[in-house]
């Protein structure tokens, strides 16, 4: 359901008209529009925004870990439209230790590395991603460093010795 105070935003209203179940919440603070999207609908919503609403750029994809709360992760998409000079933030809640989402690489090929980064540092999987491997950490790294239950100094002194 689209919150009452967001009805004035054209993008939010358009998504609501496209798929009434897509938006589960959201807010507009500090001039930034944030929409919570139902995780199973993220790919159609992104495709709709790109093709119908000129959000041709994915500025970034990242995540936040709210350990020990549940659902634990939020995957955050920052979309940008050059034509409208507008930005919108989409958020998907991902529950569980090893949660998964559908990949948006089919919409923006450039989402590839951003999703790999989220996978590498948070351990969130992306279904139908072309090459979901670690990108910043070594291949044999254990754990996912940006999780809140991962200590800043790591678990081991040295890897690969």
């Amino acid at each position, binding site marked *: 359901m689209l919150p009452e105070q967001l009805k004035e935003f054209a993008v939010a209203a358009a998504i609501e008209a496209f798929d009434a179940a897509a938006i589960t919440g959201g807010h507009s*603070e*500090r001039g930034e529009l944030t929409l919570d999207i139902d995780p199973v609908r993220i790919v159609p919503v992104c495709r709709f925004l790109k093709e119908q609403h000129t959000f041709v750029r994915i*500025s*970034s994809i990242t995540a936040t870990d709210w350990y020990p709360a549940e659902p634990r992760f939020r995957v955050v998409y920052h979309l940008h439209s*050059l034509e409208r000079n507008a930005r919108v933030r989409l958020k998907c809640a991902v529950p569980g230790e090893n949660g998964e989402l559908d990949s948006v690489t089919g919409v923006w090929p*450039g989402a590839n590395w951003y999703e790999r980064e989220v996978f590498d540092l948070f351990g969130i999987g992306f279904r139908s991603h072309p090459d979901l491997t670690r990108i910043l950490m070594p291949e044999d790294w254990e754990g996912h460093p*940006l999780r809140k239950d991962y200590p*800043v100094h790591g678990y081991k002194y040295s890897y690969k010795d």
Partner: protein
Amino acid sequence: MQDVKEESELLEQTAVEQPATPARRRMTINMGPQHPSTHGVLRVLLELDGEVITSAVPDIGYLHTGIEKQCEALNWQQAVTLTDRVDYLSNLSNNLVYALAVEKLIGDIEIPPKAQWMRVLLAELQRINSHLVWLGTHALDIGAMSMLFYCFRDREDVLKLFEMFSGQRMMTSYIRIGGLALEPPRGWQARVKKFIDGFPGKIDEYEDLLEHNPIWIGRTKNVGFISVEDMLAWGVTGPMLRGAGVNWDIRKSEPYSSYEKFDFEVATRTGNDVYSRYQVRMEEMRQSVKIIRQALDGMPEGAWKADNSHVVLPDREKMKTQMEALIYHFKIVTEGFRVPPGEAYQAVESPRGEIAYYVVSDGTSKPYRVYMRTPSFGNVQSLGVLLKGKMISDSIASMGSMDFVLGDVDR
């Protein structure tokens, strides 16, 4: 360095498939991680068919230092020092975007005009500094060695200016949440003035050196094409896009820190090759000089830090006379200031493109999450598209025109 596929294996394949033409050998070359033209540690796996690149796969992560994780262990103001180390050629842009993002999150903090003007001035000095390093090393890569010495000579002048106000040549940490770290010393502005008076003549000199050089023209014109659609799809920003005619500069489209009050033009070219990207950056340096001159001439009087005792350290003089100032000083230094819960996304035009920080606060004195959307990360991602189908001899020029910094890619 190179790994030619086993001959017997190839013969076996040809025997089975019986192709009309003889089997073409593909060669895989590891470019890097220690290749001199990558200016950092980047490995690109190139697959070649003769001299043509059939696929290029960049492999990153060699310089990953976990800056985002470390930010979560420091308090808000301390994390400024880490933002310097992300992109070590445009530290002040990184300081600026972090400060702007946190100030957006704090909300009720007003940055005085003098601090805003200074921030613009510094960001533009930084742009000149970064473009000079790019020009020198890019020209060196494709054979014009003398450029390196000229560019580094002039870059030294900029670094001396940085050293004068912050004590540091590179890791300045000068733009802080709430304003600046210190007031610039007396005589600094005169030094900046002297620099920008001489600098446009030097840009002309560089252009004379390069644009009358047939080898330079031959190696850059009509080299390194990548379509605008591909660039947008793969996350390319900055001078690469402007070299293809896209008029998008965050300083104009989403002005921050009073950029809307400055008169300058967005440099665009339509060639979409290495040469146009070079022209864009040269023009950007000229525009930067124009902005710096306006900032110097119109520098407002007044404070250089915000009037917000919860965030900004009090003056030394007040601490000796006022109890409250002493208490605030103690609180800010020991615990740090608290930032209201929420999230903010701030984008800034760095010399390399769109740099954006996503900061999340849970209401404590430490950042809950600092995400850095760095321009080089998106740009390097497009290497596979940029190099595919091109000659291997052009790969160095194409990669150089991207102007990536590996610290910026890996963070």
